């Protein structure tokens, strides 16, 4: 069975990687590390057997829900988590370039909180909190000094050229700048003159800048990335979460690296420390996940090795999955696989489905 899963995994991922390698649109849109958020607090709830925490770019606000169904009834989600990027929310429009350069790690800080409802008595039974940061992100244009220098030079040239056309307008019309700025119609006429000249001179300046940006994105998208995260999980006997006792602490580290032009390999480490009245133990996981596809539709194959000190057992987990961008800001994540206890020689099929929400690109909040 494991051979079959491995072969299927290999076939799917290689097929996806083989799709249109020269398709620049695919490459342009293939922003795996920018797509779906993965929250430490959600991972702490243990709704997914995979222990990898995929790298992602900070979003001001994002939500995740999971495990809706129960038999024939449509019920409220069992698990819910929300993540915020506090620095982005606090600074928002007042953020300067200098602020970002001095605090880029804090910019990437995301705090998450998750709860899991007890389906028996409909009360909150578990509460998780988490934090994550991006320590390295070579693919992010915001951190690319060369890109920044190109853009600033480009914008500077545009500003200087506009000034030249402005002077030309003033001379041609025998006007002073003071006369123009005090007359709205003259000012509009001057602006139209400059824009018209600029289009002829630069042959669509904005298009050239977008091309420059896309060129850097294509070159950068699959550069190295390193995320770290921590979290803790508490249990509460009541829905008000008054007496929460934290009994699980987790640490994640995930490294992303390119595989050719169309793929991304994630290597993840996860350590969980469990503590309660009767016992203390650790669970360690090493996970690899290979992605292929486009930003909106992508598949992955995953292999995970886990050591559970409490059970004194080793586990192996193999899965295939996919992510679909249903609508702007809404993502579905589905996976299915086999988890095998290597020590006791027993296996179980595992499946997972969740929905993820971020602020839609078209929605303006601030």
């Amino acid at each position, binding site marked *: 069975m494991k051979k079959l899963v491995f072969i299927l995994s290999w076939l799917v991922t290689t097929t996806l990687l083989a799709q249109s390698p020269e398709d620049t649109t695919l490459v342009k849109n293939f922003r795996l590390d920018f797509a779906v958020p993965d929250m430490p607090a959600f991972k702490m709830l243990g709704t997914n057997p995979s222990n990898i925490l995929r790298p992602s770019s*900070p*979003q*001001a606000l994002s939500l995740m829900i999971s495990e809706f169904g129960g038999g024939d009834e449509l019920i409220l989600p069992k698990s819910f988590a929300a993540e915020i*990027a506090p620095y*982005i929310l606090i*600074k*928002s*429009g*007042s*953020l*300067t*370039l*200098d*602020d*970002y350069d001095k605090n880029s790690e804090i910019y990437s800080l995301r705090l998450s909180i998750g709860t899991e409802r007890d389906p028996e008595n409909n009360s909150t039974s578990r509460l998780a909190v988490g934090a994550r940061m991006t320590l390295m992100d070579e693919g992010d*244009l*915001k951190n690319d000094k060369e890109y*920044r220098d190109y*853009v*600033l*030079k480009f*914008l*500077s040239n*545009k*500003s*200087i050229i*506009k*000034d030249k056309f402005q*002077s030309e307008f*003033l*001379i041609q019309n025998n006007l*002073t*700048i*003071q006369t123009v*700025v*005090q007359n709205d119609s003259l000012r509009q006429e001057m*602006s139209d003159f400059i824009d018209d000249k600029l289009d002829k001179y630069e042959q669509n*300046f*904005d298009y050239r*800048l*977008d091309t420059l*940006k896309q060129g850097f994105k294509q070159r950068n998208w699959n550069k190295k990335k390193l995320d770290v995260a921590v979290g803790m999980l508490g249990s509460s006997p009541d829905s008000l979460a008054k007496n929460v006792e934290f009994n699980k602490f987790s640490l994640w580290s995930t490294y992303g690296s390119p595989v050719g032009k169309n793929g991304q390999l994630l290597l993840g480490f996860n350590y969980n420390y469990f503590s309660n009245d009767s016992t203390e133990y650790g669970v360690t996981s090493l996970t690899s996940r290979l992605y292929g596809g486009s930003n909106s539709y992508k598949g992955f194959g995953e292999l995970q090795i886990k050591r559970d000190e409490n059970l004194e057992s080793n586990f192996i987990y193999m899965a295939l999955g996919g992510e679909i961008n249903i609508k702007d800001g809404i993502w579905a994540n589905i996976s299915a696989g086999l988890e095998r206890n290597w020590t006791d020689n027993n296996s179980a099929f595992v499946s997972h489905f969740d929905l993820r929400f971020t*602020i839609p*690109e078209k929605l*303006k*909040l*601030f």
Partner: protein
Amino acid sequence: MKTIEFDPNGPILKVNFKFSGFILASYTYTLWEAESNHKVVYEKGNNQNPQDDSYQLPMPVKANDGRLIQLRTEFLAQDPDNVEKYTITAEVYQGDTLLDKAEDQGDNTGSAQSSLIFIKLKAS
């Protein structure tokens, strides 16, 4: 266009440019002579280093009466999905006192954007 009054017998005038909303910005600053197309000052800069976005106006102070400050900015938002507004500000100081400022605010689009601010200086 904003008009800012200053004391012709007061300390030196200074103009500061600020760019917020997480943008990459390059600008040209022009100080126009009163009722003339003569450029008294013409400077180029960008927002990489905020310390060098401050300029002293020429002396004597009263010579700036009627002059026009022009700030032309070309910019590109760095994270328009998360930081959705920009503000470009030109502040005029006399000595250490902020006399007044002119602002341009708007939505970040993610494409190249432009801003143009004018301030007329008037001796009180």
